[in-house]
């Protein structure tokens, strides 16, 4: 998994690629919680277009980040979910709790 951050005005976009699993999800979790809890970025957007695989530990990291965003009054937004990622979120019955858009333009629009 690779993570690259782009910082716009009050928005940070994380471009994530590769597999989010037991080995890599701690890095994702740490990056997201730092962005939300320490930097208090008002909107954190995850670009998942290039994520090939996500497991329950990856979903758990997203849920923890979502809870942190609610705690600090930020928004956590996902976009670019491919079929595999979407299926795993559906399987977890947690897709409904996330703010999900099709593309980046929708995710960063005011």
């Amino acid at each position: 998994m690779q993570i690259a951050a782009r910082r716009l005005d009050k928005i940070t976009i994380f471009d994530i690629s590769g597999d989010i699993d037991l080995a890599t999800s701690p890095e994702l979790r740490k990056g997201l919680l730092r962005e939300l809890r320490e930097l208090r970025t008002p909107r954190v957007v995850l670009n998942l277009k290039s994520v090939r695989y996500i497991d329950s530990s990856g979903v758990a990291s997203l849920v923890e980040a979502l809870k942190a965003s609610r705690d600090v009054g930020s928004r956590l937004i996902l976009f670019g979910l491919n079929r595999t990622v979407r299926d795993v979120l559906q399987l977890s019955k947690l897709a409904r709790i996330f703010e999900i858009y099709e593309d980046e333009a929708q995710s960063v629009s005011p």
Partner: protein
Amino acid sequence: MLCVVRQALGQLAAGLGFSEAECHAVVLAVDEALTNIIRHAYRGNAEQPIEASFHRIEAAQNGQRREALEILLEDRGPAVDPEKLCGRALEDVKPGGLGLHFIRECMDTVEFSRSEGRNQLRLVKFLNVQGPEKGS
């Protein structure tokens, strides 16, 4: 290491005739099972041995003999407490506890047993299961 297993298993399942969605389901289930073994049986130590075997079998489902993929995973960790194999209520929005739910949703048979100091997990996925796919 898990990514290597995922890739190999995906190719194996595709070679046996599973659809793309079914291949993803099998890969997810086995990945979650291995993750659970590493996390819970081996307390995070990924260097401990896990034995995996894969068999093309015929088994009964709804009174019919069907072809299936059988996967056996064995670890040498402490005995698993059956009460901890219940998963959790999905209404609880909280991180963690999803792995077992994923395994049960993705596979047709999930059986835990303990024999000769080893935990054994048996997973079965039937080929050409008719009706709506699980998780879709």
